[in-house]
């Protein structure tokens, strides 16, 4: 078992051996959703009938000898930002409440081709702008299965909560400033932001044009690797999609880390921001475990986190505002208050602010590239603070506290979160592992080795079913 459900690998093997059917596994997920989701609110829409039909088809295909690969018959779910023909895509906003695309997002096309069973759409922050969730949008925010008084992190909030609560075997998220990695950290699961251009963003409602990435979230790194394999690759419909070969992400997962050079960017959470001792210990332990497995682990330095944060806080809102400018002018009242003001921030920059931030980004990228010439990967914390309480009274909490995932959005490097431990408050702590451009395979290999050696994945949230 991997969490509350079998892992994708286990389920795929059981389905092929005849010990399990996709239909039975899908019913298990639907039962769990019916029992636990009222308290977690991870799902925006559950598509039970469609999921049952897809599972039945998957079973029939496998019985007839058609095997689409390890996702064939596996129940997954999607953040409510992907175009899905026949369904509304809202990005949790009244502005998009009646929007229905006439074709599927490329990620959905690929998951369907891989035989996945799609259980439904998962909640997100309005228009995927991070910070804190709000109770204002039309659909209530997901709650953290580990403690419903704490936030899930976002904006792939429902994706993180659904995976942690065992309401699907994996989920898709999107990440322009940490929206996969923060909920992965806060929910104690794995989540991969691939290299920018690795996975098509066609049909993903954008937050930005320069940074948005589609990626997998699952209980384990191995399951993320299987999902990434299915969705990666060039797509002519996305101008940011790269023509780069897609390697095998799964076969090398167990090759170990002996001889790999891994840098720890410790100053981000010790000097640039004073994270509490439990977070510092957890991240130090990642280095210790990997060192014990034969990796050469050493401290490395780049510019202070505040410098990365500054660039991100100019570029992300500026691009988001450009996307929403016309609707903000004409439908201001239709947006939730928090979302419209967060988007409005981007209208307060001048062109020169944007370009100077882009030039600083170039300098910062050069720094990280220099580090990654010496190291195969770098490690940082996945979160600077304990999981915050649910509180939507602060309109702009993301301005004054640095954003720990943003460096790898600015550089475009692949970055994966693994569970690194638990805080004194019992909440999960995540670690980020980032690697060279297009080298998701090494990042996943390091993460997989840590997960196996650290033995932290046996602990699960205590779920409460509503009375």
């Amino acid at each position, binding site marked *: 078992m991997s969490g509350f459900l079998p892992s994708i690998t286990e389920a795929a093997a059981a389905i092929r051996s005849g010990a399990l059917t996709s239909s039975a596994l899908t019913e298990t997920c639907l039962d769990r959703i019916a029992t636990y989701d009222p308290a977690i609110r991870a799902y925006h829409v559950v598509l039970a009938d469609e999921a049952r039909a897809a599972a039945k088809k998957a079973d029939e295909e496998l019985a007839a000898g058609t095997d689409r690969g390890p996702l064939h018959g596996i129940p997954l779910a999607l953040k409510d930002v992907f175009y899905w023909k026949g369904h509304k895509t809202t990005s949790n906003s009244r502005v998009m409440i009646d929007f229905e695309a006439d074709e599927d997002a490329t990620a959905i096309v690929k998951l369907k081709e891989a035989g996945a069973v799609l259980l439904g759409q998962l909640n997100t922050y309005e228009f995927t702008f991070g910070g804190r969730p709000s109770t204002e949008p039309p659909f209530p925010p997901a709650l953290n299965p580990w403690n419903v008084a704490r936030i899930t992190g976002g904006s792939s909030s429902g994706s993180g909560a659904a995976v942690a609560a065992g309401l699907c075997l994996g989920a898709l998220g999107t990440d322009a400033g940490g929206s996969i990695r923060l909920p992965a950290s806060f929910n104690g699961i794995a989540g991969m932001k691939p290299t920018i251009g690795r996975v098509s963003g066609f049909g993903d409602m954008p937050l930005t044009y320069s940074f948005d990435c589609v990626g997998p979230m699952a209980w384990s790194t191995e399951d993320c690797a299987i999902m990434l394999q299915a969705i990666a690759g060039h797509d002519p419909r996305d101008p940011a999609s790269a023509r780069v070969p897609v390697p095998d992400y799964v076969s090398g997962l167990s090759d170990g880390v002996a001889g790999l050079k891994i840098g720890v960017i410790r100053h981000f959470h010790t000097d640039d921001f004073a994270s509490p001792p439990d977070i510092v210990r957890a991240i130090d332990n990642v280095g210790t475990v990997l060192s014990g497995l034969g990796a050469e682990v050493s401290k490395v330095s780049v510019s202070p986190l505040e410098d990365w944060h500054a660039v991100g806080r100019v570029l992300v809102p500026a691009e988001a505002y450009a996307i929403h400018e016309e609707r903000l002018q004409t439908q201001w009242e239709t947006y939730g208050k928090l979302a419209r003001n967060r988007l409005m921030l981007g209208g307060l920059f001048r062109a020169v602010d944007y370009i100077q931030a882009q030039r*600083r980004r170039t300098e910062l990228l050069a720094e990280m590239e220099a580090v990654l010439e010496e190291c195969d990967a770098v490690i940082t914390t996945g979160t600077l603070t304990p999981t915050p309480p649910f509180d939507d009274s602060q309109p702009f909490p993301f301005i004054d506290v640095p954003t720990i995932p943003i460096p790898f959005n600015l550089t475009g490097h692949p970055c994966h979160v693994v569970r690194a431990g638990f805080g004194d408050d019992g909440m999960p702590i995540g670690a980020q592992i980032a690697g060279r451009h297009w080298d998701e395979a090494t990042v996943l290999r390091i993460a997989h080795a840590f997960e196996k050696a650290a033995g932290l994945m046996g602990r699960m949230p205590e779920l409460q079913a509503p009375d």
Partner: protein
Amino acid sequence: MSAEDRMFEALIEASGVPVQADEKAELRKAYASLMTLAAKTRVAGRSWEVRMLPGYVPEAPEKDAP
């Protein structure tokens, strides 16, 4: 009114976005923080050879998103 106040008011007005007075007050506070961050992205004496990363791609998409 400070230069930053005037800039803020002008940007809000020029945006054409009907921001309410109470929300504008919150945005004004945030604007001060944002300008501090924007200043941090500037490096004194930076060479003009430090360019922004190319944002173009050499080929057009086959089909525009709807």
